[in-house]
Protein backbone atom coordinates (compact mmCIF):
# COMPACT_ATOMS: atom_id res chain seq x y z
CA UNK A 1 0.00 0.00 0.00
CA UNK A 2 2.60 2.61 0.97
CA UNK A 3 5.02 3.94 -1.62
CA UNK A 4 2.82 3.51 -4.65
CA UNK A 5 0.10 5.68 -3.17
CA UNK A 6 0.35 9.29 -4.17
CA UNK A 7 -0.05 12.30 -1.98
CA UNK A 8 -2.49 15.14 -2.13
CA UNK A 9 -2.62 17.19 -5.30
CA UNK A 10 -1.50 14.45 -7.61
CA UNK A 11 -4.58 12.33 -7.09
CA UNK A 12 -7.87 14.09 -7.36
CA UNK A 13 -10.28 12.89 -4.72
CA UNK A 14 -13.05 12.97 -7.31
CA UNK A 15 -14.22 9.49 -6.41
CA UNK A 16 -15.38 10.94 -3.09
CA UNK A 17 -18.33 13.19 -2.46
CA UNK A 18 -17.54 16.59 -3.95
CA UNK A 19 -15.98 19.27 -1.74
CA UNK A 20 -19.36 20.65 -0.73
CA UNK A 21 -20.17 17.10 0.32
CA UNK A 22 -19.73 14.80 3.18
CA UNK A 23 -20.02 16.83 6.34
CA UNK A 24 -22.66 19.14 4.98
CA UNK A 25 -24.72 16.35 3.55
CA UNK A 26 -24.64 14.74 6.97
CA UNK A 27 -26.04 17.97 8.40
CA UNK A 28 -28.88 18.11 5.89
CA UNK A 29 -29.59 14.42 6.46
CA UNK A 30 -30.01 15.35 10.10
CA UNK A 31 -32.60 18.03 9.42
CA UNK A 32 -34.38 15.81 6.94
CA UNK A 33 -34.35 12.87 9.34
CA UNK A 34 -35.70 14.93 12.22
CA UNK A 35 -38.46 16.30 9.99
CA UNK A 36 -39.35 12.79 8.84
CA UNK A 37 -39.41 11.51 12.41
CA UNK A 38 -41.69 14.36 13.49
CA UNK A 39 -43.99 13.65 10.56
CA UNK A 40 -44.17 9.92 11.27
CA UNK A 41 -44.82 10.49 14.97
CA UNK A 42 -47.58 13.00 14.16
CA UNK A 43 -49.31 11.09 11.37
CA UNK A 44 -49.05 7.55 12.72
CA UNK A 45 -51.84 7.84 15.34
CA UNK A 46 -54.32 8.73 12.58
CA UNK A 47 -53.98 5.14 11.39
CA UNK A 48 -54.40 3.57 14.85
CA UNK A 49 -57.75 1.74 15.04
CA UNK A 50 -57.61 1.15 18.82
CA UNK A 51 -55.68 1.63 22.06
CA UNK A 52 -53.60 -1.48 21.55
CA UNK A 53 -51.77 0.23 18.71
CA UNK A 54 -51.08 3.19 20.95
CA UNK A 55 -49.70 0.87 23.61
CA UNK A 56 -47.33 -0.77 21.17
CA UNK A 57 -46.24 2.59 19.73
CA UNK A 58 -45.52 3.91 23.24
CA UNK A 59 -43.48 0.80 23.99
CA UNK A 60 -41.52 1.27 20.75
CA UNK A 61 -40.81 4.90 21.56
CA UNK A 62 -39.68 4.13 25.12
CA UNK A 63 -37.36 1.38 23.92
CA UNK A 64 -36.03 3.68 21.21
CA UNK A 65 -35.24 6.36 23.80
CA UNK A 66 -33.26 3.86 25.88
CA UNK A 67 -31.47 2.52 22.80
CA UNK A 68 -30.40 5.95 21.53
CA UNK A 69 -28.73 6.54 24.91
CA UNK A 70 -27.28 3.04 25.02
CA UNK A 71 -25.89 3.40 21.51
CA UNK A 72 -23.91 6.48 22.57
CA UNK A 73 -22.19 4.16 25.03
CA UNK A 74 -21.85 1.04 22.87
CA UNK A 75 -21.33 2.62 19.48
CA UNK A 76 -19.11 5.54 20.42
CA UNK A 77 -17.44 4.87 23.76
CA UNK A 78 -17.04 1.22 22.73
CA UNK A 79 -18.30 -0.04 26.07
CA UNK A 80 -21.08 -2.53 26.67
CA UNK A 81 -23.58 -2.29 29.48
CA UNK A 82 -25.46 -5.46 30.42
CA UNK A 83 -27.35 -3.68 33.16
CA UNK A 84 -29.40 -1.06 31.41
CA UNK A 85 -32.60 -2.91 32.24
CA UNK A 86 -31.51 -2.46 35.86
CA UNK A 87 -31.24 1.32 35.43
CA UNK A 88 -34.56 1.35 33.60
CA UNK A 89 -36.25 -0.63 36.39
CA UNK A 90 -34.62 1.46 39.13
CA UNK A 91 -35.96 4.60 37.49
CA UNK A 92 -39.40 2.99 37.37
CA UNK A 93 -39.41 1.53 40.89
CA UNK A 94 -37.60 4.47 42.43
CA UNK A 95 -40.21 6.92 41.27
CA UNK A 96 -43.06 4.48 41.95
CA UNK A 97 -41.96 3.77 45.53
CA UNK A 98 -41.38 7.43 46.37
CA UNK A 99 -44.80 8.30 44.97
CA UNK A 100 -46.76 5.32 46.34
CA UNK A 101 -45.08 4.73 49.73
CA UNK A 102 -43.75 8.22 50.38
CA UNK A 103 -46.66 10.16 48.91
CA UNK A 104 -44.30 12.33 46.89
CA UNK A 105 -45.75 14.20 43.95
CA UNK A 106 -44.69 12.37 40.79
CA UNK A 107 -43.11 15.42 39.20
CA UNK A 108 -40.65 15.37 42.11
CA UNK A 109 -40.27 11.61 42.56
CA UNK A 110 -39.33 11.12 38.89
CA UNK A 111 -36.33 13.47 38.76
CA UNK A 112 -35.16 12.32 42.19
CA UNK A 113 -35.27 8.66 41.14
CA UNK A 114 -33.52 9.42 37.85
CA UNK A 115 -30.79 11.47 39.54
CA UNK A 116 -30.23 8.67 42.07
CA UNK A 117 -29.74 6.20 39.24
CA UNK A 118 -27.22 8.63 37.73
CA UNK A 119 -25.25 8.64 40.98
CA UNK A 120 -25.35 4.84 41.09
CA UNK A 121 -24.11 4.60 37.50
CA UNK A 122 -21.30 7.01 38.33
CA UNK A 123 -20.28 4.87 41.33
CA UNK A 124 -20.20 1.72 39.19
CA UNK A 125 -18.59 3.36 36.17
CA UNK A 126 -15.86 5.38 37.81
CA UNK A 127 -13.65 2.51 38.99
CA UNK A 128 -14.40 0.17 36.07
CA UNK A 129 -14.02 2.60 33.17
CA UNK A 130 -10.48 3.50 34.21
CA UNK A 131 -9.48 -0.04 33.31
CA UNK A 132 -8.94 -1.13 29.76
CA UNK A 133 -11.21 -3.90 28.55
CA UNK A 134 -14.78 -4.92 29.14
CA UNK A 135 -14.95 -4.55 32.90
CA UNK A 136 -18.00 -2.31 32.59
CA UNK A 137 -19.95 -5.18 31.03
CA UNK A 138 -19.08 -7.39 34.01
CA UNK A 139 -19.89 -4.74 36.61
CA UNK A 140 -23.20 -3.79 35.00
CA UNK A 141 -24.12 -7.46 34.57
CA UNK A 142 -23.65 -7.91 38.32
CA UNK A 143 -25.54 -4.73 39.11
CA UNK A 144 -28.46 -5.72 36.88
CA UNK A 145 -28.77 -9.12 38.56
CA UNK A 146 -28.67 -7.55 42.02
CA UNK A 147 -31.34 -5.01 41.09
CA UNK A 148 -33.53 -7.76 39.70
CA UNK A 149 -33.20 -9.88 42.87
CA UNK A 150 -33.81 -6.97 45.21
CA UNK A 151 -36.92 -5.87 43.32
CA UNK A 152 -38.32 -9.42 43.46
CA UNK A 153 -37.60 -9.96 47.15
CA UNK A 154 -38.25 -6.68 48.94
CA UNK A 155 -42.01 -7.35 48.99
CA UNK A 156 -42.87 -4.62 51.49
CA UNK A 157 -41.44 -1.98 49.17
CA UNK A 158 -41.81 -3.36 45.68
CA UNK A 159 -44.69 -5.83 45.97
CA UNK A 160 -42.33 -8.63 44.97
CA UNK A 161 -42.75 -10.65 41.78
CA UNK A 162 -46.44 -9.68 41.59
CA UNK A 163 -45.49 -6.08 41.00
CA UNK A 164 -46.96 -2.90 42.41
CA UNK A 165 -49.51 -0.26 41.50
CA UNK A 166 -48.06 3.13 40.60
CA UNK A 167 -49.79 6.47 41.19
CA UNK A 168 -50.36 8.53 38.03
CA UNK A 169 -48.39 11.59 37.03
CA UNK A 170 -50.35 14.68 38.06
CA UNK A 171 -49.67 17.91 36.21
CA UNK A 172 -51.52 21.19 36.81
CA UNK A 173 -53.97 19.41 39.10
CA UNK A 174 -54.93 16.77 36.53
CA UNK A 175 -53.83 13.16 36.21
CA UNK A 176 -52.02 12.46 32.98
CA UNK A 177 -53.89 9.45 31.64
CA UNK A 178 -55.01 7.84 28.44
CA UNK A 179 -52.97 6.32 25.64
CA UNK A 180 -53.16 9.21 23.14
CA UNK A 181 -51.83 11.71 25.68
CA UNK A 182 -49.02 9.42 26.74
CA UNK A 183 -48.24 8.75 23.11
CA UNK A 184 -47.81 12.49 22.62
CA UNK A 185 -45.52 12.78 25.66
CA UNK A 186 -43.36 9.78 24.79
CA UNK A 187 -43.28 10.72 21.09
CA UNK A 188 -42.05 14.20 21.98
CA UNK A 189 -39.56 12.60 24.34
CA UNK A 190 -38.22 10.39 21.57
CA UNK A 191 -37.97 13.29 19.13
CA UNK A 192 -36.07 15.39 21.69
CA UNK A 193 -33.76 12.48 22.54
CA UNK A 194 -32.90 11.97 18.87
CA UNK A 195 -32.40 15.71 18.33
CA UNK A 196 -30.12 15.99 21.38
CA UNK A 197 -28.16 12.91 20.35
CA UNK A 198 -27.67 14.11 16.77
CA UNK A 199 -26.51 17.52 18.00
CA UNK A 200 -24.22 15.89 20.51
CA UNK A 201 -22.51 13.67 17.95
CA UNK A 202 -21.88 16.64 15.67
CA UNK A 203 -20.17 18.72 18.38
CA UNK A 204 -16.75 18.73 20.06
CA UNK A 205 -18.16 16.16 22.52
CA UNK A 206 -19.30 13.96 19.67
CA UNK A 207 -15.91 14.18 17.99
CA UNK A 208 -14.27 13.17 21.26
CA UNK A 209 -16.59 10.15 21.50
CA UNK A 210 -16.11 9.17 17.86
CA UNK A 211 -12.36 9.59 18.32
CA UNK A 212 -12.45 7.06 21.17
CA UNK A 213 -14.21 4.70 18.81
CA UNK A 214 -11.69 5.39 16.01
CA UNK A 215 -8.44 5.17 17.98
CA UNK A 216 -8.30 5.52 21.73
CA UNK A 217 -4.54 6.06 21.82
CA UNK A 218 -4.74 8.82 19.20
CA UNK A 219 -7.66 10.39 21.06
CA UNK A 220 -5.54 10.55 24.22
CA UNK A 221 -2.65 12.18 22.35
CA UNK A 222 -4.85 15.12 21.36
CA UNK A 223 -5.90 15.55 24.98
CA UNK A 224 -9.11 13.53 25.15
CA UNK A 225 -9.47 12.03 28.62
CA UNK A 226 -10.85 8.64 27.58
CA UNK A 227 -11.87 7.48 31.07
CA UNK A 228 -13.72 10.72 31.77
CA UNK A 229 -15.62 10.70 28.48
CA UNK A 230 -16.59 7.06 28.79
CA UNK A 231 -17.86 7.73 32.29
CA UNK A 232 -19.82 10.77 31.15
CA UNK A 233 -21.54 8.94 28.35
CA UNK A 234 -22.22 5.92 30.56
CA UNK A 235 -23.91 8.05 33.21
CA UNK A 236 -25.87 9.92 30.54
CA UNK A 237 -27.10 6.68 29.01
CA UNK A 238 -28.13 5.42 32.46
CA UNK A 239 -30.03 8.68 33.11
CA UNK A 240 -31.87 8.27 29.82
CA UNK A 241 -32.77 4.65 30.64
CA UNK A 242 -33.99 5.65 34.11
CA UNK A 243 -36.12 8.45 32.65
CA UNK A 244 -37.73 6.04 30.21
CA UNK A 245 -38.31 3.61 33.08
CA UNK A 246 -39.97 6.24 35.27
CA UNK A 247 -42.21 7.31 32.38
CA UNK A 248 -43.19 3.68 31.78
CA UNK A 249 -44.16 3.18 35.41
CA UNK A 250 -46.45 6.20 35.60
CA UNK A 251 -47.90 5.56 32.19
CA UNK A 252 -48.72 1.89 32.80
CA UNK A 253 -49.82 2.40 36.40
CA UNK A 254 -48.39 -0.99 37.28
CA UNK A 255 -44.90 -2.46 37.20
CA UNK A 256 -43.33 -5.88 37.71
CA UNK A 257 -39.67 -6.89 38.11
CA UNK A 258 -39.74 -8.50 34.64
CA UNK A 259 -38.39 -5.29 33.09
CA UNK A 260 -35.31 -5.51 35.33
CA UNK A 261 -34.30 -8.94 34.06
CA UNK A 262 -30.92 -9.68 32.55
CA UNK A 263 -32.79 -10.80 29.45
CA UNK A 264 -34.22 -7.31 28.98
CA UNK A 265 -30.71 -5.83 29.23
CA UNK A 266 -29.57 -8.20 26.50
CA UNK A 267 -32.61 -7.30 24.40
CA UNK A 268 -31.65 -3.63 24.57
CA UNK A 269 -28.09 -4.40 23.46
CA UNK A 270 -29.44 -6.55 20.61
CA UNK A 271 -31.67 -3.69 19.47
CA UNK A 272 -28.63 -1.42 19.26
CA UNK A 273 -26.48 -3.93 17.38
CA UNK A 274 -29.37 -4.93 15.11
CA UNK A 275 -30.17 -1.33 14.14
CA UNK A 276 -26.52 -0.35 13.83
CA UNK A 277 -23.82 0.60 16.28
CA UNK A 278 -22.68 4.23 16.27
CA UNK A 279 -25.87 5.26 14.49
CA UNK A 280 -28.58 7.30 16.20
CA UNK A 281 -31.16 6.31 13.58
CA UNK A 282 -29.98 2.73 13.86
CA UNK A 283 -30.96 2.67 17.53
CA UNK A 284 -34.44 3.93 16.67
CA UNK A 285 -34.89 1.43 13.84
CA UNK A 286 -33.51 -1.44 15.93
CA UNK A 287 -35.84 -0.66 18.82
CA UNK A 288 -38.83 -0.32 16.49
CA UNK A 289 -38.24 -3.52 14.52
CA UNK A 290 -37.41 -5.72 17.49
CA UNK A 291 -40.30 -4.39 19.57
CA UNK A 292 -42.80 -4.87 16.73
CA UNK A 293 -41.51 -8.21 15.48
CA UNK A 294 -42.80 -10.32 18.41
CA UNK A 295 -46.24 -8.72 17.95
CA UNK A 296 -46.37 -10.05 14.40
CA UNK A 297 -44.78 -13.37 15.21
CA UNK A 298 -47.40 -14.35 17.80
CA UNK A 299 -49.40 -15.90 14.93
CA UNK A 300 -46.70 -18.55 14.71
CA UNK A 301 -47.47 -19.66 18.29
CA UNK A 302 -44.95 -22.32 19.36
CA UNK A 303 -42.53 -21.39 16.60
CA UNK A 304 -42.42 -17.73 17.56
CA UNK A 305 -39.01 -17.76 19.25
CA UNK A 306 -37.52 -19.90 16.51
CA UNK A 307 -38.69 -17.50 13.82
CA UNK A 308 -37.43 -14.55 15.88
CA UNK A 309 -33.99 -16.12 16.19
CA UNK A 310 -33.88 -16.99 12.51
CA UNK A 311 -34.76 -13.42 11.54
CA UNK A 312 -32.02 -12.08 13.80
CA UNK A 313 -29.42 -14.40 12.30
CA UNK A 314 -30.39 -13.74 8.70
CA UNK A 315 -30.42 -9.99 9.28
CA UNK A 316 -26.97 -9.96 10.83
CA UNK A 317 -25.62 -12.04 7.94
CA UNK A 318 -26.93 -9.63 5.31
CA UNK A 319 -26.63 -6.44 7.36
CA UNK A 320 -23.41 -7.08 9.28
CA UNK A 321 -23.03 -3.47 10.43
CA UNK A 322 -26.64 -3.28 11.50
CA UNK A 323 -29.58 -2.23 9.38
CA UNK A 324 -29.05 1.52 9.08
CA UNK A 325 -25.25 1.68 8.52
CA UNK A 326 -25.39 -1.15 5.98
CA UNK A 327 -28.19 0.56 4.06
CA UNK A 328 -26.33 3.89 4.20
CA UNK A 329 -23.26 2.21 2.79
CA UNK A 330 -25.24 0.60 -0.03
CA UNK A 331 -26.93 3.91 -0.84
CA UNK A 332 -23.60 5.76 -0.90
CA UNK A 333 -22.18 3.14 -3.24
CA UNK A 334 -25.19 3.38 -5.51
CA UNK A 335 -24.85 7.13 -5.75
CA UNK A 336 -21.28 7.04 -7.11
Amino acid at each position, binding site marked *: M*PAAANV*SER*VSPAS*DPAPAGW*ARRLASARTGGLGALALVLAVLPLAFPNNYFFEVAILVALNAIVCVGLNLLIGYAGQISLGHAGFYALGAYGSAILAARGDWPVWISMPVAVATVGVLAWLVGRPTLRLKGHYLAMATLGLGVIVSIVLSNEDHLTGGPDGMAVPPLVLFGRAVQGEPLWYAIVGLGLWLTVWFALNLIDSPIGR*ALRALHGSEVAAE*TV*GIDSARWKLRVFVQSALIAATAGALTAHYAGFITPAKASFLHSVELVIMVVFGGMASIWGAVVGAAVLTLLPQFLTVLKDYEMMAFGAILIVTMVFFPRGIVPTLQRLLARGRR
Partner: protein
Amino acid sequence: MSLLAVEHLAKRFGGLRAIDDLSFEVPARTVFSIIGPNGAGKTTLLNLMTGIYVPDTGCVRLGGKDLTGQPTHRWAAAGLGRTFQNLQVFFNMSALENVMTGRHLHENTALAPAIFRLPAMRRAETQSRAHAEALMHRVGLGAWIDARADAMPYGALKRLEIARALAAEPKLLLLDEPAAGLNQTEAHEIDGLIRELARGGMTVVLVEHNMRLVMEVSDRVLVLDRGARLAEGTPAEVASDPRVIEAYLGAEAPAKTAAEVAHA
Protein backbone atom coordinates in the same frame (compact mmCIF):
# COMPACT_ATOMS: atom_id res chain seq x y z
CA MET B 1 16.22 26.12 29.63
CA SER B 2 15.46 22.96 27.78
CA LEU B 3 11.86 22.31 26.86
CA LEU B 4 12.04 18.58 27.39
CA ALA B 5 14.28 16.82 29.89
CA VAL B 6 14.63 13.06 30.18
CA GLU B 7 16.38 12.02 33.38
CA HIS B 8 17.76 8.56 34.17
CA LEU B 9 14.92 6.90 32.34
CA ALA B 10 14.73 3.09 32.45
CA LYS B 11 12.22 0.53 31.24
CA ARG B 12 12.53 -3.24 31.27
CA PHE B 13 10.39 -5.80 29.51
CA GLY B 14 11.13 -9.03 31.36
CA GLY B 15 14.90 -9.47 31.07
CA LEU B 16 15.26 -6.97 28.25
CA ARG B 17 16.46 -3.49 29.13
CA ALA B 18 14.57 -1.57 26.46
CA ILE B 19 15.70 1.77 27.87
CA ASP B 20 18.65 1.76 30.23
CA ASP B 21 19.40 4.82 32.37
CA LEU B 22 18.95 7.32 29.56
CA SER B 23 19.24 11.10 30.03
CA PHE B 24 19.08 13.90 27.48
CA GLU B 25 17.60 17.33 26.97
CA VAL B 26 15.80 18.88 24.04
CA PRO B 27 16.28 22.66 23.86
CA ALA B 28 13.30 24.72 22.73
CA ARG B 29 13.01 25.63 19.05
CA THR B 30 15.25 22.91 17.76
CA VAL B 31 14.77 19.85 15.63
CA PHE B 32 16.05 16.98 17.73
CA SER B 33 16.36 13.59 16.08
CA ILE B 34 16.53 10.21 17.73
CA ILE B 35 18.05 7.50 15.58
CA GLY B 36 19.38 4.02 16.14
CA PRO B 37 19.41 0.56 14.66
CA ASN B 38 16.30 -1.63 14.81
CA GLY B 39 15.56 -2.62 18.38
CA ALA B 40 17.54 0.28 19.84
CA GLY B 41 14.51 1.34 21.88
CA LYS B 42 13.30 4.33 19.88
CA THR B 43 9.62 3.47 19.93
CA THR B 44 9.77 2.47 23.59
CA LEU B 45 11.36 5.82 24.34
CA LEU B 46 8.61 7.62 22.46
CA ASN B 47 5.95 5.71 24.34
CA LEU B 48 7.65 6.61 27.63
CA MET B 49 7.72 10.23 26.51
CA THR B 50 3.97 10.32 25.90
CA GLY B 51 2.63 8.43 28.89
CA ILE B 52 1.72 5.29 26.97
CA TYR B 53 4.31 3.35 29.00
CA VAL B 54 5.23 4.13 32.59
CA PRO B 55 9.00 4.00 33.23
CA ASP B 56 10.48 1.76 35.93
CA THR B 57 12.70 4.59 37.10
CA GLY B 58 13.59 8.09 36.01
CA CYS B 59 11.38 10.91 34.84
CA VAL B 60 10.41 13.06 31.89
CA ARG B 61 9.81 16.80 32.31
CA LEU B 62 8.08 19.03 29.82
CA GLY B 63 8.67 22.74 30.38
CA GLY B 64 9.91 21.94 33.90
CA LYS B 65 6.79 19.94 34.80
CA ASP B 66 7.28 16.30 35.78
CA LEU B 67 4.74 14.27 33.84
CA THR B 68 6.05 10.78 34.65
CA GLY B 69 3.23 8.32 35.29
CA GLN B 70 0.54 10.71 34.07
CA PRO B 71 -1.99 9.48 31.51
CA THR B 72 -1.40 10.48 27.89
CA HIS B 73 -4.10 13.17 27.75
CA ARG B 74 -2.30 15.11 30.51
CA TRP B 75 0.85 15.12 28.40
CA ALA B 76 -1.18 16.51 25.55
CA ALA B 77 -2.61 19.20 27.81
CA ALA B 78 0.93 20.08 28.87
CA GLY B 79 1.81 20.77 25.23
CA LEU B 80 3.01 17.51 23.75
CA GLY B 81 1.71 16.40 20.37
CA ARG B 82 2.66 13.31 18.42
CA THR B 83 2.12 11.25 15.31
CA PHE B 84 2.37 7.48 15.00
CA GLN B 85 4.63 5.22 13.01
CA ASN B 86 1.74 2.82 12.41
CA LEU B 87 -1.08 5.21 11.56
CA GLN B 88 -3.64 6.03 14.22
CA VAL B 89 -6.14 7.95 12.13
CA PHE B 90 -9.82 8.23 13.09
CA PHE B 91 -11.09 6.28 10.10
CA ASN B 92 -14.69 6.77 11.20
CA MET B 93 -14.52 10.50 10.42
CA SER B 94 -13.84 12.82 7.52
CA ALA B 95 -10.32 14.17 7.06
CA LEU B 96 -11.42 17.58 8.27
CA GLU B 97 -13.06 16.14 11.38
CA ASN B 98 -9.82 14.34 12.20
CA VAL B 99 -8.06 17.67 12.31
CA MET B 100 -10.95 19.35 14.15
CA THR B 101 -10.68 16.63 16.80
CA GLY B 102 -7.14 17.84 17.33
CA ARG B 103 -8.70 21.10 18.60
CA HIS B 104 -10.29 19.25 21.53
CA LEU B 105 -8.23 21.01 24.21
CA HIS B 106 -9.26 24.40 22.84
CA GLU B 107 -12.95 23.62 22.45
CA ASN B 108 -15.89 24.09 24.76
CA THR B 109 -17.06 20.62 25.76
CA ALA B 110 -19.95 21.61 28.03
CA LEU B 111 -23.07 19.51 27.50
CA ALA B 112 -25.82 22.13 27.17
CA PRO B 113 -24.38 24.16 24.26
CA ALA B 114 -23.75 20.90 22.42
CA ILE B 115 -27.16 19.24 22.76
CA PHE B 116 -29.11 22.44 22.10
CA ARG B 117 -26.69 23.49 19.36
CA LEU B 118 -26.61 27.02 20.72
CA PRO B 119 -25.45 29.89 18.47
CA ALA B 120 -22.17 30.17 20.41
CA MET B 121 -21.51 26.52 19.64
CA ARG B 122 -22.22 27.01 15.95
CA ARG B 123 -19.83 29.94 15.81
CA ALA B 124 -17.14 27.98 17.63
CA GLU B 125 -17.64 25.09 15.20
CA THR B 126 -17.24 27.42 12.22
CA GLN B 127 -14.00 28.76 13.67
CA SER B 128 -12.74 25.30 14.48
CA ARG B 129 -13.50 24.22 10.93
CA ALA B 130 -11.70 27.23 9.45
CA HIS B 131 -8.68 26.59 11.66
CA ALA B 132 -8.60 22.93 10.61
CA GLU B 133 -8.95 23.81 6.94
CA ALA B 134 -6.05 26.25 7.17
CA LEU B 135 -3.90 23.56 8.78
CA MET B 136 -4.77 21.08 6.07
CA HIS B 137 -3.70 23.58 3.43
CA ARG B 138 -0.50 24.17 5.36
CA VAL B 139 0.48 20.48 5.32
CA GLY B 140 -0.49 20.15 1.67
CA LEU B 141 -3.85 18.43 2.11
CA GLY B 142 -5.93 21.17 0.51
CA ALA B 143 -7.44 18.73 -1.96
CA TRP B 144 -8.59 16.31 0.74
CA ILE B 145 -10.57 18.55 3.06
CA ASP B 146 -13.92 16.88 2.47
CA ALA B 147 -12.60 13.39 1.84
CA ARG B 148 -13.37 10.54 4.16
CA ALA B 149 -10.27 9.47 6.07
CA ASP B 150 -10.71 5.86 4.97
CA ALA B 151 -10.58 6.93 1.31
CA MET B 152 -7.18 8.64 1.56
CA PRO B 153 -3.82 7.23 0.42
CA TYR B 154 -1.04 6.43 2.87
CA GLY B 155 1.09 9.51 2.22
CA ALA B 156 -1.85 11.83 2.78
CA LEU B 157 -2.74 10.07 6.02
CA LYS B 158 0.79 10.68 7.32
CA ARG B 159 0.24 14.41 6.79
CA LEU B 160 -3.23 14.21 8.24
CA GLU B 161 -1.72 12.99 11.52
CA ILE B 162 0.68 15.93 11.49
CA ALA B 163 -2.18 18.37 10.88
CA ARG B 164 -4.19 16.79 13.70
CA ALA B 165 -1.26 17.07 16.10
CA LEU B 166 -0.66 20.71 15.09
CA ALA B 167 -4.33 21.53 15.67
CA ALA B 168 -3.75 21.06 19.39
CA GLU B 169 -1.09 23.83 19.23
CA PRO B 170 1.60 21.77 20.95
CA LYS B 171 4.85 23.18 22.29
CA LEU B 172 6.66 20.05 21.26
CA LEU B 173 5.84 17.77 18.38
CA LEU B 174 6.99 14.15 18.32
CA LEU B 175 7.11 12.67 14.85
CA ASP B 176 7.45 8.90 14.81
CA GLU B 177 8.94 7.93 11.44
CA PRO B 178 7.01 10.48 9.37
CA ALA B 179 8.81 9.38 6.18
CA ALA B 180 8.38 5.63 6.64
CA GLY B 181 6.66 4.09 3.65
CA LEU B 182 6.90 7.25 1.57
CA ASN B 183 8.67 7.55 -1.77
CA GLN B 184 11.54 9.99 -2.38
CA THR B 185 9.38 12.91 -3.49
CA GLU B 186 6.98 12.51 -0.59
CA ALA B 187 9.84 12.25 1.89
CA HIS B 188 11.25 15.49 0.49
CA GLU B 189 7.91 17.18 1.04
CA ILE B 190 7.91 15.99 4.65
CA ASP B 191 11.32 17.46 5.32
CA GLY B 192 10.19 20.74 3.79
CA LEU B 193 7.29 20.66 6.22
CA ILE B 194 9.50 19.92 9.22
CA ARG B 195 11.83 22.77 8.31
CA GLU B 196 8.90 25.11 7.96
CA LEU B 197 7.61 24.09 11.40
CA ALA B 198 11.05 24.67 12.90
CA ARG B 199 11.25 28.11 11.31
CA GLY B 200 7.88 28.87 12.90
CA GLY B 201 9.40 28.17 16.33
CA MET B 202 8.12 24.64 16.89
CA THR B 203 10.27 22.19 18.82
CA VAL B 204 10.34 18.92 16.93
CA VAL B 205 11.51 15.53 18.15
CA LEU B 206 11.98 13.28 15.17
CA VAL B 207 12.37 9.52 15.25
CA GLU B 208 13.36 8.42 11.79
CA HIS B 209 15.12 5.75 9.78
CA ASN B 210 15.61 7.89 6.72
CA MET B 211 19.18 9.17 7.29
CA ARG B 212 19.06 11.72 4.53
CA LEU B 213 16.02 13.33 6.17
CA VAL B 214 17.62 13.28 9.62
CA MET B 215 20.88 14.79 8.42
CA GLU B 216 19.11 17.53 6.50
CA VAL B 217 16.65 18.79 9.09
CA SER B 218 18.18 18.11 12.52
CA ASP B 219 19.90 20.57 14.82
CA ARG B 220 20.93 17.77 17.16
CA VAL B 221 20.95 14.00 16.87
CA LEU B 222 20.81 11.41 19.63
CA VAL B 223 21.98 7.94 18.66
CA LEU B 224 20.48 5.11 20.69
CA ASP B 225 21.81 1.61 20.85
CA ARG B 226 20.36 -1.09 23.09
CA GLY B 227 18.40 1.43 25.07
CA ALA B 228 21.36 3.67 25.93
CA ARG B 229 22.97 6.75 24.48
CA LEU B 230 25.65 5.86 21.96
CA ALA B 231 26.38 9.38 20.80
CA GLU B 232 24.85 12.83 20.73
CA GLY B 233 25.74 15.95 18.77
CA THR B 234 25.22 17.83 15.54
CA PRO B 235 24.45 15.72 12.46
CA ALA B 236 28.05 16.14 11.25
CA GLU B 237 29.54 15.08 14.60
CA VAL B 238 27.34 12.05 14.83
CA ALA B 239 27.92 10.99 11.23
CA SER B 240 31.67 10.94 11.75
CA ASP B 241 31.56 9.19 15.12
CA PRO B 242 33.24 5.77 14.74
CA ARG B 243 30.93 4.17 17.33
CA VAL B 244 27.90 5.22 15.33
CA ILE B 245 29.36 3.85 12.11
CA GLU B 246 30.15 0.64 13.91
CA ALA B 247 26.63 0.28 15.33
CA TYR B 248 25.06 0.89 11.95
CA LEU B 249 27.40 -1.06 9.72
CA GLY B 250 28.27 -3.67 12.32
CA ALA B 251 31.98 -3.24 11.50
CA GLU B 252 34.13 -5.12 13.98
CA ALA B 253 31.21 -5.27 16.38
CA PRO B 254 30.18 -8.60 17.90
CA ALA B 255 27.30 -9.96 15.89
CA LYS B 256 23.93 -9.50 17.56
CA THR B 257 21.91 -12.56 18.30
CA ALA B 258 18.74 -12.94 16.32
CA ALA B 259 16.70 -12.64 19.50
CA GLU B 260 18.11 -9.23 20.32
CA VAL B 261 17.41 -7.92 16.87
CA ALA B 262 13.90 -9.27 16.85
CA HIS B 263 13.05 -7.66 20.18
CA ALA B 264 11.61 -4.20 20.87
